[in-house]
């Protein structure tokens, strides 16, 4: 019964994806075209004949609406087209090469942030208003407030330039090159998750059913693990959907500081270079990732929270 409900829910959600994406594509397409300047504007103005040839090659000489429908038709077949900026690559190739890198760094950072963040949050909640609580949460506040473009160079200076333990940047899929970016990316998320966990844990610990569990004489560890953990983690789970989507699609700051070939820079570079196809490609891809992750979060949520079941709707 439950499974059937979930399946139906999944189907509805997937159908809902189509108008959402269409809206996203339309808005993104016209917004980037409205921006002044184009992909071929540069310091050295091109001779008009060459400019005309380039415009024709990329169909930029056609009316905008015609280009829009051409683009829609093209992405129906899963083709995001050639990049204007990186002329040897198609947008599909750039995403296919960039996403695994971003997903690895972002995924590891999320894993680290989830484990450490919840541990810190629970510890702080259990020792509420003690020195441990204050110091742990104080450090967490620091993690949120210090931007990563400050932390990253400090980490590089300390561990790479002076100590020589880790490489200062670059990418070759070795764990050594992942350590610093993963830590930098995880730090603010650890702090945020710790704060979320602490808050909801404290709330849960004050609820009636926990008092009941304790009254029944269950050991404290059992109370936390069996009864308090799941409900306390719910706000963290709903935060993790969009947060994971943001992390695994790359961060432009992290990628620039550590020279990582991820997806994040394409959002910024693509927009600045008026690389129309690249911007559209990464925006659509990001949209899909968010929708999928939110869906997964919903499923986990339902599993964790007995009050939400998708068969209710039927």
């Amino acid at each position, binding site marked *: 019964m439950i499974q059937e409900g979930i399946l139906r829910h999944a189907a509805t959600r997937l159908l809902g994806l189509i108008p959402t994406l269409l809206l996203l594509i339309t808005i993104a397409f016209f917004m980037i075209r409205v*921006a*002044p*300047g*184009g992909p*071929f*504007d*540069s*310091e*050295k*103005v*091109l*001779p*008009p*004949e*060459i400019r005309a*040839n*380039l415009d*024709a*090659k990329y169909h930029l000489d056609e009316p905008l609406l015609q280009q829009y429908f051409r683009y829609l038709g093209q992405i129906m077949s899963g083709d995001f087209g050639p990049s204007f*900026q*990186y*002329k*040897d*690559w198609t947008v599909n190739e*750039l995403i296919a*090469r*960039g996403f695994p890198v971003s997903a690895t760094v972002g995924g590891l950072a999320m894993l680290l942030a989830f484990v450490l963040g919840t541990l810190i949050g629970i510890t702080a909640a259990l020792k509420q208003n003690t020195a441990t609580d204050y110091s742990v949460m104080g450090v967490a506040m620091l993690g949120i407030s210090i931007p990563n473009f400050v932390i990253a*160079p400090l980490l*590089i*200076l300390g561990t*790479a*330039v002076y100590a*020589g333990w880790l*490489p*200062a*940047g*670059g*990418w*070759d899929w070795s764990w050594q090159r992942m350590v610093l970016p993963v830590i930098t990316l995880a730090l603010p998320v650890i702090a945020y998750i710790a704060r979320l966990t602490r808050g909801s844990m404290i709330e849960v610990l004050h609820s009636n059913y926990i008092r009941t569990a304790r009254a029944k004489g269950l050991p404290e560890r059992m109370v936390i693990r069996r009864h308090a953990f799941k409900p306390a983690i719910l706000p963290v789970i709903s935060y993790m959907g969009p947060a994971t989507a943001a992390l695994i699609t790359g961060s432009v700051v992290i990628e*620039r*500081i*550590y*020279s*990582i*070939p991820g997806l994040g*820079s394409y959002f910024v570079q693509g927009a*600045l*270079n*008026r690389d129309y196809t690249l911007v559209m490609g990464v925006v659509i891809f990001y949209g899909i990732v968010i929708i999928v992750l939110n869906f997964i979060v919903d499923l986990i949520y339902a599993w964790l929270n007995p009050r939400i079941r998708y068969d209710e709707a039927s």
Partner: protein
Amino acid sequence: MPLLVKRLGGYILCGLTLSLMCQNALAFKIRRGLGPEPDSIHIHQAQGLAAINLLRDLREGLVTFDEKGEPVPGQAASWQVLDGGRRYQFTLRPDARWSNGDPVTAGDYVRAWRRAFTPETAAATAGLLKDVLNANEVLQGSAAVESLGIRAIEPGILEISLVEPAPWILEILAHPVSFPLHSESIDNPLLAPVNGPYVLSDWTPRASIRLDRNPQFHAAQSVLADSVEYFPIEEPSAELSRYRAGELDITETIPAGRFGWLQENLSADLRVHPYLGTFWLGLNLKQPVLGHSRELRQALALAIDREILSKKVLGAGELPGWSVVPPGMQGYDPAKMLQSELSQEEREEMAVRIFGQAGFGRHEPLLLELRYNTSGVHRRVAVAVAAMWKQVLGVNTQLVNEEWKVFVNNRRMGVVTEVFRGGWIADFADPASFLDLFVSGNNLNSTFYGNSDFDMLMKSAQISSGGTRMEILARAEARLMEDVPVIPLYYYVSRHLVRPEITGYVDNIRDVHLSRYLRLITEKP
């Protein structure tokens, strides 16, 4: 020291015997920063400096650069200049080969050039070959691509015809857009046979590009670095970190604001050298205020203290600029603004005087707009210039910064611009590459300067040669600097960090440093 002598001895021995064993004993790898990811490694698509530098290690044209960055014969063994500089006949090296062993023929050049000029290719840099016979007609589609002025007389002899004499064409022949293409290679730049000192062996976009020595290269035995690894690193401070962590041997640049620190801490590695570029403020002469009064433009130019600008505001080795053409071009002495000889005090006095003559004064302050594209350096320059104008002339300057593409678009249109950030980095070391910008009707002329005397001088320079030509060009520049369509502020410099144990990296005005000349003189610690 003994080690050094031994290694040098080794090189000499290598040079003599060309033995494989010897080369292996000296095997070393050079790791270079590349700046941004190259936009393309296809000779007809590459536009950015990163791509062009990379292509010059992979491929070679009729002409190439020597260690000092001067043009020398590359794939051509020799050439003859005919018809008063309108026709060039090149004899190809008999040992010029593609990396797959095929000989490089004159037909490979003809095919490549025709491809570059085909509208479907849309080669953005094809404009560099505009002096070639029928180039413009072919680009416009009014002439067949076969009519282009390039012809294979024999497999080993190539003829290039020009519309007018263009002595800089030799340097253009060292630019990737003029390189040959192997007959099978057209659509796959990654697997394509190359004819340069190195072959591409691995490319991970935005991470690293690895080149290995090309044994088929005609001067392979003199290429000492077995492999070169290029790292695209967009962020200069990230590049510096990696250099300091020992992961790079040569950087593409240095981070802004770190010049003083580097001078103190890495002075043996720091290389700063004049470069083929000038930074200026352009004045849109279509705006009535700026266009009508030459005195006003001169006053604005004189009120700026370039010493303070280059030493205090920029402070990374830039040189104060008084001309459009930067110094360092062979046989040419830039025609500076005459007032550059005066002291700054005298200049400011003069500025106030002619500002008054032009009908402006403090009682009725002039309001100007200074537009620049968003960047830390440009912002600092703009703020300083505005302060100097205010102080000396009482001019109120409104600073407008715009995102890059918006800025270049506005500058090209010339509707809203008044004073704007400008400048030029030459494609080839010839004064004409700067002065041509100001010929009436040139689409790069964003000041909309138009002067028939200047145009005529440029025209007559085109049909002269040697010293006479340079003299005429200098007269044209002097004319330009009297009219002040642009206010030159400083000359660019190239900035790199190079490990002291590397030789063969000679600072030069073109800032070209082919990897084939790099050598290592000591073991790395």
